[in-house]
C-alpha cells in the first residue's frame, strides 16, 4: 500500500513536471535578433499601428506625454484588474535593461526576460505574427522615447489566475494565432490583414471570447460585450458595417462617421493612432474589413 502511494506521488510529480515542461514559457534563440538593424522612423509607424501608447502611456496623458510609457492604465476584466506596466527605457522601472530579443519574446510568445508568462491583457495573442523587421524597428524607436521612473503597478488578479504558471496551459489552448479564414487576393488586402489581425489587434475587442478568455475565431470581428463596462463593442463585419471604403478611411483619419458622429471611448485612441499611418495603410484596413466573412 505504502509502495503504491509512493509510486502515485512519483507519477504525480512526473506529471506536473511534464505539464510544466509542455507549458513552459517559449523563447527565441538569444541571438535571433542579432544582425537586424532597426529603423526608428519606421518603428514609429509600427508603434502607432500597434497602439502601444494607448495602453502604456499614463492614463490621462495627452499630446507629447503619450510618448512617456509609464504605464498605470487599468484594465478591469472577469479575471481581475490588470495594470499596463512601465515600458519606458528607464533601466530600473522600465525596460531599459532589455535587449531587442526580449521585446521579440514578449510580443511573439508572451514571455518575459526572466521566463515568466505575461497575462494576455498584453495582446501577444495577436502580436505573435509580427515580422522580425517590425520588431527590430519598434525596438529602435522605443529607445528614442523618454524614460519614466514610475514603478509598474502589480496586477490585481484572483486565484487561480494569480498563478502565472497556469497561463502556460492557457497559452497551450488559446495562444498561437493563425491568419483567419480571410484569404487576401492582393497586396493591399494582405497588408490590411496584417494591420487588423496582428499589429492593430482589432480582434482582441471586436471578437467575442469563450468562458476561459479564448477568442472565438468563427465569429471573427463579430462584436463582443464591452470587457470593462456597459454596452457592446460593435460587429465590424460586412453584416453590420455597411460603410464604404472611403467612409472607413475618413473615420480612421478624422474620427467622423458618415453621419458625423465622432469616435469615442477606446476607439478614439485607435483613430488617433491610425491617423498617423500612411493613407495607404488606412485604405488597406478598409479593404480587409470589406472581405471579412459576415457575422450575423
Amino acid at each position, binding site marked *: 500500500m505504502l509502495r503504491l502511494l509512493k509510486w502515485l506521488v512519483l507519477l504525480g510529480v512526473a506529471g506536473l513536471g511534464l505539464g510544466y515542461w509542455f507549458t513552459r514559457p517559449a523563447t527565441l534563440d538569444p541571438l535571433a535578433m542579432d544582425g537586424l538593424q532597426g529603423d526608428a522612423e519606421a518603428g514609429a509607424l509600427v508603434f502607432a499601428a500597434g497602439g502601444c501608447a494607448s495602453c502604456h502611456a499614463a492614463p490621462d496623458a495627452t499630446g507629447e506625454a503619450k510618448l512617456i510609457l509609464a504605464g498605470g492604465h487599468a484594465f478591469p476584466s472577469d479575471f481581475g484588474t490588470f495594470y499596463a506596466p512601465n515600458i519606458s527605457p528607464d533601466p530600473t522601472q522600465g525596460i531599459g535593461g532589455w535587449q531587442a530579443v526580449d521585446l521579440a519574446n514578449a510580443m511573439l510568445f508572451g514571455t518575459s526576460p526572466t521566463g515568466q508568462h505575461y497575462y494576455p491583457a498584453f495582446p501577444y495573442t495577436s502580436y505573435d505574427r509580427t515580422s522580425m523587421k517590425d520588431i527590430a524597428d519598434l525596438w529602435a524607436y522605443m529607445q528614442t522615447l523618454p524614460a519614466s521612473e514610475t514603478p509598474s503597478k502589480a496586477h490585481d488578479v484572483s486565484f487561480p489566475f494569480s498563478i502565472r504558471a497556469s497561463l502556460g496551459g492557457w497559452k497551450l489552448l488559446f495562444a498561437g494565432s493563425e491568419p483567419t479564414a480571410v484569404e487576401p487576393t492582393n497586396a493591399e488586402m494582405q497588408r490590411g490583414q496584417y494591420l487588423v489581425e496582428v499589429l492593430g489587434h482589432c480582434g482582441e475587442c471586436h471578437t467575442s471570447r469563450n468562458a476561459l478568455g479564448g477568442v472565438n475565431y468563427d465569429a471573427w470581428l463579430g462584436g463582443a460585450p464591452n470587457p470593462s463596462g*456597459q*454596452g*457592446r463593442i*460593435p460587429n465590424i463585419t460586412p453584416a453590420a458595417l455597411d460603410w464604404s471604403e472611403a467612409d472607413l478611411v475618413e473615420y480612421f483619419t*478624422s474620427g*467622423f462617421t458618415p453621419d*458625423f458622429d465622432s469616435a469615442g*471611448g477606446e476607439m*478614439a485612441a485607435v483613430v488617433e493612432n491610425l491617423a498617423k499611418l500612411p493613407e495607404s495603410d488606412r485604405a488597406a484596413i478598409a479593404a480587409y474589413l470589406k472581405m471579412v466573412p459576415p457575422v450575423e
Partner: protein
Amino acid sequence: MRLAKKFITLTALSLTLSAPAIAQDAKAIDGAVKARKAQMSLYAFNLGILGNMAKGQADYDAAVAQGAASSLLALIRLDASQMWPAGSEQGAAAGSRAKPEMWNNMNDVIAKAMAMQAAAEAMDGAAGQGLEAMQAAMGGVGGACSACHKAYRGPKE
C-alpha cells in the same frame, strides 16, 4: 454679459452634477437623456453640412456654411445645467451612453465643454471665409467632439 451668463450656466452645471444624488423622477431623467440626444443630433446635422463641403461631397456655399457654423455655436451655448442629472448614466438610464466617470470629473467635463465652445467660435469665424478656412477649422471641432466622447461615452448597447 456673455461671460457672466456663461459663468452662471457653468456654475449651475457643476452644482447639478456634483450635488449628491438626489432621487430623480425617472421621467425627468428620461427627458434629459432625450434632450441630450436631440442636441447631439443637431450637432451632427450641422457638422454634416460643413463636413460634406470639407470633403468635397458638396459644393462650398459660404452662406450655408456660415449658417451651419452659427447653429453649431448656438447649440454649444445651450444651457446644459439641467441636462445631466445624477442617475442618467449608461446602465442606469435607458438609451444613455454617458459613462459614470463624468459625474466624478466635472471640472474636466466643463473644460472640455469650453474647448468645444472655443472650437465652435473658431468655426463660426472661418466657415464663411472660404473653403480652405472652413476645412482648417474642421479638425478643431472634430477634436473637441472626440475628446469628450473618448473620455465619457460608452459603446452602444
